[in-house]
């Protein structure tokens, strides 16, 4: 960043906002060196910073911890803004089952606090505990547990956001039902910082299930597990989540049942009768977390894609992805989506991705590159939104970030 801009920023914000170390994965994700990270300590400081940036045409890349940043190519000059110092739980009323916290609070810290009251936030995208609340809301990721609890977007009750021009907006509220006006909070969830920076959020939380049972079925090949997975997805009993995981040497079907002991026992029996299989039961939390965390095990690879199709086409999606030797696959059976972590040494990344995308789209599906080596153009490998949707989204972008300084969707 230019010296005059650095000087100007130093006079704007207190010294605590500077000196944050650059997350190791960030330069690769942003395809450029990152010298400085700014950490505003309040919504007012975020607002000042964005107004400053907007007036000078300086781009802003919002991050949480920076550990889950997807590829973006911001053009100079830009700054990276972390929400790390917006890390206070502002309001928690266990009896209301709602919590308001700063965007920079880590999910694992929220989980610790909520567990004291027998509550939790039932979302499980990969590595969720190391994500921030703001990051979770900004990415809109729910994980396979959405099947049992609904998607995150339906449980974000309110948020304070700062728009691209520094305007602060308080959206939604702290109550679980609220239709007071147009729901402009909804497009903020999952907007990845494209419209505004989320500085705090209020979320609906849930009682921890008395029993959290993981049923496991193993097979040599993931294809052998698909019929059982699909049978569960259309069974009268609806588990909290159903996912499939395959690595080069092992494939597993993971089914989570939540509830009281008697109902979980009954659900397991019903599912075993319905599918004519006998599951291995994992009730120990350590055992479970090991197995569930594995879902994010491929995250450190530099090459990953996510694909979607109708849930009934999950077999076809997996057939396509299996063609990539060494691919590690995580499928959300109810959601009809698969994350594929691909070996970086595949011979020709660009043609492989092009081929994958073509095959997926021929199935009526869509594909998005999640992680991609710096030398490859990330934006080339995702199925574009429909033209009308893109135009409406652009209209919202102009309304909330008029100078287009926020580098949200790359």
């Amino acid at each position: 960043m230019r010296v005059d801009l650095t000087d100007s920023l130093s006079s704007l914000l207190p010294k605590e906002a500077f000196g944050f170390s650059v997350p190791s994965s960030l330069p690769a994700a942003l395809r450029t060196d990152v010298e400085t990270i700014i950490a505003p300590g309040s919504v007012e400081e975020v607002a000042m910073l964005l107004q400053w940036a907007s007036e000078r045409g300086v781009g802003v890349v919002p991050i949480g911890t920076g550990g889950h940043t997807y590829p973006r190519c911001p053009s100079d000059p830009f700054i990276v803004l972390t929400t790390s110092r917006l890390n206070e739980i502002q309001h928690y009323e266990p009896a209301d089952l709602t919590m308001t916290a700063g965007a920079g609070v880590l999910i694992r810290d929220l989980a610790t606090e909520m567990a004291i009251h027998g509550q939790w936030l039932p979302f499980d995208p990969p590595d969720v505990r190391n994500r921030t609340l703001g990051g979770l809301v900004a990415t809109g990721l729910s994980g396979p547990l959405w099947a049992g609890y609904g998607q995150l977007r339906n449980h974000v009750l309110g948020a304070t956001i700062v728009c691209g021009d520094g305007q602060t907006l308080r959206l939604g509220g702290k109550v679980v039902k609220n239709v007071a006006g147009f729901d402009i909070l909804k497009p903020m969830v999952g907007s990845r910082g494209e419209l505004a920076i989320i500085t705090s959020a209020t979320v609906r939380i849930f009682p921890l299930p008395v029993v959290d049972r993981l049923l496991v079925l193993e097979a040599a090949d993931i294809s052998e597990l698909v019929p059982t997975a699909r049978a569960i997805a259309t069974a009268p009993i609806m588990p909290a989540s159903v996912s499939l995981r395959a690595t080069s040497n092992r494939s597993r079907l993971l089914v989570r049942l939540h509830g009281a002991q008697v109902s979980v026992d009954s659900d397991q029996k019903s599912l075993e009768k319905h599918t004519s299989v006998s599951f291995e039961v994992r009730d120990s939390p350590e055992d479970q977390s090991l197995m569930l965390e594995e879902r994010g095990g491929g995250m450190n690879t530099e090459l990953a894609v996510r694909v979607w199709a109708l849930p009934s086409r999950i077999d076809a999606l997996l057939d396509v992805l299996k063609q990539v030797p060494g691919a590690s696959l995580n499928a959300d059976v109810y959601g009809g989506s698969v994350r594929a972590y691909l070996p970086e040494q595949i011979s020709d990344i660009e043609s492989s991705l092009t081929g994958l995308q073509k095959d997926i789209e021929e199935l009526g599906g869509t594909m998005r590159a999640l992680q991609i080596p710096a030398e490859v153009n990330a934006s080339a490998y995702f199925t574009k939104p429909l033209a009308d949707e893109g135009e409406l989204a652009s209209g919202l972008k102009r309304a909330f970030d008029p100078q287009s300084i926020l580098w949200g969707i790359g």
Partner: protein
Amino acid sequence: MTRPLPSTVVSDLAEIVGHEHVITDPERLLVYESDGLTAYRRPPRAVVLPSSTEEISAVVELLHSNGIEVIPRGAGTGLSGGALTTPEGVIVGTARMNRILKIDVENRLAIAQPGVINARLTEATNPYGLYYAPDPSSQSTCTLGGNVAENSGGPHCLKYGVTARYVTGLTVVLAGGRIVQLGGVGRDPYSTLDLVGLFVGSEGCFGIATEIEIRLLPITEGVRTLLGIFESVESAGRAVTKIMASGLMPAAVEIVDGPTIEAVEASVFAAGYPLEAGAALVIEFDGTEAGLDLDADRAEKCCLEEGAIEVQRATDPEHRVKLWRARKKAFGAMGRIAPDLLVQDATVPRTKLPEVLAGIDDIGNRYGLKIANVFHAGDGNLHPNILFDRQNQNELELVELASKEIMQLCVDAGGTITGEHGVGVDKREYMTLVHGPAELEAMAAAKRVFDPASLFNPGKVLPDVEGEGTTKSEKILAMGE
């Protein structure tokens, strides 16, 4: 006097939808002069009833190109005046768009036209072991399109969530008749912004949903319904807080207060509730049969600990219907005790229910107005119903003052001005209680993205700056007389 549409526009509309589906006869237009909130009345210039996305598109294109405002309307059961026409508006009704286009059992999805009655979708999907979860009280008459416009709730939304959770994709007709697809299962939801989520609850101000992709759920194995009788609504409110804080996840938790019980028991809907009761609490659990008795036992214990006089449990489906009757028929029964009823709608944090209910009681006493509460207690969604006579000008003004105080009370308790009925025309002036100028401008900006010339349902949701100073009772009288 409503200005008639130019005859060329009428004939062009008839060309699109057929003569019999363009209504201009003033007597027939009277049916469309209000929605479920009858305090606001104004006949439209015409009503058009298209039967397909293409017809809606052509109708909207024609009307918008003539600068004529379009007022979308489903079954007209809304309770915030959302389907009230503007003086220059034409109502586009979805009554003929009543087909379920697809039931995809494998993916648990349905695609329906907006005029499909809410309950009909559940009836049609029941044979496949599926149902549609959101169940507004008007579900036997309200339409899915109306539910999308209002983001409707219902008793069982406590566990299952409101309409937005179940709408996965939309075909919409926007300004000028443009047909646009939004979202849809099987597509990358992160490829763009959540436009479906933004459209749901936009109260007909962004466009008209013409095809709705809906997520269905498997029918639950069992259900348990309890009825707790309490001496006061406050103790019933405390029982609700206790149940919800105990880790239980009921499907529905509803309160019917003493004045409502009185009205119901005096009506044809009498359910046998004790007349001396201060409140009744309907609690329902659903899910796997095996765990339900345990849940019901725990909820019963919570009620008794908070002073319930008795707790009944439904023994068969007929008994369940009976326990629900007072809740379901409350609005109808109130017609017996007052000529007019203002159904209010606000949400507060659940833990604030006892103090807010006491505050509402106090407001009623101060204004000398009878207020009956029947509401979704589990999610803090209050429906204080003010009973009045609109012919009595003095009382009408008191209703307005009391309403505003109730809204302020709920907002001060950390709540909001509407939980499920929408803002419509009725609550525009209360929007400033919960939103600042910047938030209201942001909402207006979002509307402009979809409807730049404000030709879809103008004058709804967002307050008019120039409208300040006109009281609601003046507006009601001006339009109603």
